């Protein structure tokens, strides 16, 4: 009996354009949000997701057929797609929303991604979706799990190691959990979300940045996909957190110990 040919894997990586992690953000005076006229870049966890997709292809050679990146956001989000393409993705999908539109919620994003996975099916089934574990702007950490729920696919969140066994169509994923690590085995298709320790993302080289400019980006609107990205939760206001007043410095260890003792902190054993 001839073994059936292994189907080649298609990977989808959703990425988000977010305020750069190093920017010290400021709440706007109207308390409606934060000042967004600052440097933006790809959400760090999404960089790790793109990197993992590219590494999977490097490790598994021809078993990975395509790596597609997708973003939902205003026109400027196209830059984020280009960055991902320069890192090694093959093509992009940009679901464009107006600059003035409120930021979509994880549920809306997950529904959009489901629509894209279903749309891609006409060309080739998506086998693996790799997302960041959370975006550093809204800190929600829900989209991957929601997408897995909507598609009814298995999920491996907070991944620190991913090994794909393409012959048996399973993913072996080590996950970071409270207090340690856990290993799970998921059947493909699977949703994976990345934790920090999964890998160290590469910098795009200049030739690759040039090449990325020629890679295709497909533009879609939420209505093309039949999804509504209007937030359900109402943001009433955004405020500054209470300021902490630093108590100043002490000169030596004796003064430090005195301060500790004043606060009622002493050794529990001698």
């Amino acid at each position, binding site marked *: 009996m001839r073994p059936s040919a292994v189907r080649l894997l298609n990977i989808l990586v959703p990425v988000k354009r977010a305020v750069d992690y190093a920017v010290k953000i400021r709440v706007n005076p109207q308390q409606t949000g934060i000042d967004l006229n600052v440097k933006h870049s790809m959400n760090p966890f999404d960089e790790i997701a793109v990197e993992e997709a590219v590494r999977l292809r490097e490790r598994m050679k021809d078993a990975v057929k395509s790596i597609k990146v997708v973003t939902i956001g205003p026109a400027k989000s196209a830059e984020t797609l280009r960055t991902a393409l320069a890192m090694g993705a093959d093509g992009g999908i940009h679901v464009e929303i107006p600059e003035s539109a409120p930021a979509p919620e994880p549920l809306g994003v997950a529904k959009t991604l489901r629509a894209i996975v279903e749309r891609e099916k006409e060309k080739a089934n998506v086998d693996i979706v790799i997302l960041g574990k959370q975006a550093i702007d809204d800190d929600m950490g829900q989209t991957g799990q929601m997408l897995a729920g909507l598609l009814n696919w298995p999920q491996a969140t907070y991944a620190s190691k991913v090994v794909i066994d393409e012959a048996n169509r399973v993913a*072996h994923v080590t996950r970071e959990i409270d207090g*340690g690590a856990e290993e799970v085995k998921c059947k493909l298709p699977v949703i994976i979300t990345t934790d920090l320790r999964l890998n160290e993302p590469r910098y795009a080289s200049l030739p690759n940045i040039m090449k990325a400019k020629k890679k295709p980006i497909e533009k879609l609107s939420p209505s093309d996909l039949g999804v509504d990205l209007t937030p359900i939760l109402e943001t009433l206001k955004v405020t500054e957190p209470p300021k902490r007043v630093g108590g100043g410095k002490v000169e030596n260890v004796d003064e430090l110990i005195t301060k*500790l003792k004043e606060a009622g902190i002493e050794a529990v054993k001698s």
Partner: protein
Amino acid sequence: MLRVASLNFRTSLLRTYATAASPHALVFLEHRGGSLDSGSLSAVTAASQLGGQVTGLIVGNESEVPAAIEAAKKVKGLNAIVHCTSPQYTASLPETVSPLFEKILSGSTQYSHVVSAHSSSARSILPRVAARLDVPAVSDITSLEHDASASTTTFTRPIYAGNAIATVRSPSSVPIKFFTIRSTAFSAALCEEGTSVEATSIDPTEVADPPSEHVKTSLTKSDRPELGVATRVVSGGRALKNAETFESTLYPLADLLGAAVGASRAAVDAGYADNSLQVGQTGKIVAPELYMALGISGAIQHLAGMKDSKLIVAVNKDPDAPIFQVADVGLVGDLYQVVPEMIEKLKQ
């Protein structure tokens, strides 16, 4: 005439709806080996603040659930307990546990809220369930307020690594409001003898041929208090040089103070400490009585994880390190001299 009648009909409908909307929270009680996680006790406190019924849900295998029920019966603030036992729930994988949640919550459900700690297991499971029920979820909230007459719940939650606080309202159009709570923002519900509540068993929802399988769990063993709930934390950064120095410098001080050990991302990435010790936006969020930052510069991602601590003590060689802006007590100095001296003097 007809118009008036239909109007009346509508108001009466609305009224029933409003009175029926008394909150009833389902709290996901997580446990390990039969003892309840302290984060879940904080979730009970948060659920009580909604001002209605609070039911605890315990899911697990046969060897753990009975002990967890016994523990939950003593928790103040719980009005009822439902539990479900199946060998399939041993590893509480989202793929096998979500169908149970769906069964409990779908149809004419009595629950208006689903609450849990923002733990790694709950935040893997609950968003999956929420999406399947087509409702949004709110993560890592620090305060809440429920308006029973309007059926809305307002939450505050930190965004941008805690550099801004968003106030969001889940409208009445969301029939079941899912949220996870930041454990450090709510005190743990008290436990006392003799406040036994009724525990009801429900049938498991067996998943035939589950798409995922638990292989193994490896927990980091430690005799020290657990980082997330410790009242004192001694934390080290990149300045600790290597894993051996990290241990030999920090552990004696932590043990002397009865403190948990934490680490900055730099220390974890450099391999000095296990990543379960990481404090920050992407690690643990702590708010102990005492947080001692040794050789930690104080990047915003780290501050996000500890700036709600009561007393912050920082030791750093660099007088301009940002950590000094939040520290209550700062000492500019070499931690290799300061720490041994501190140990010496604390012992006196």
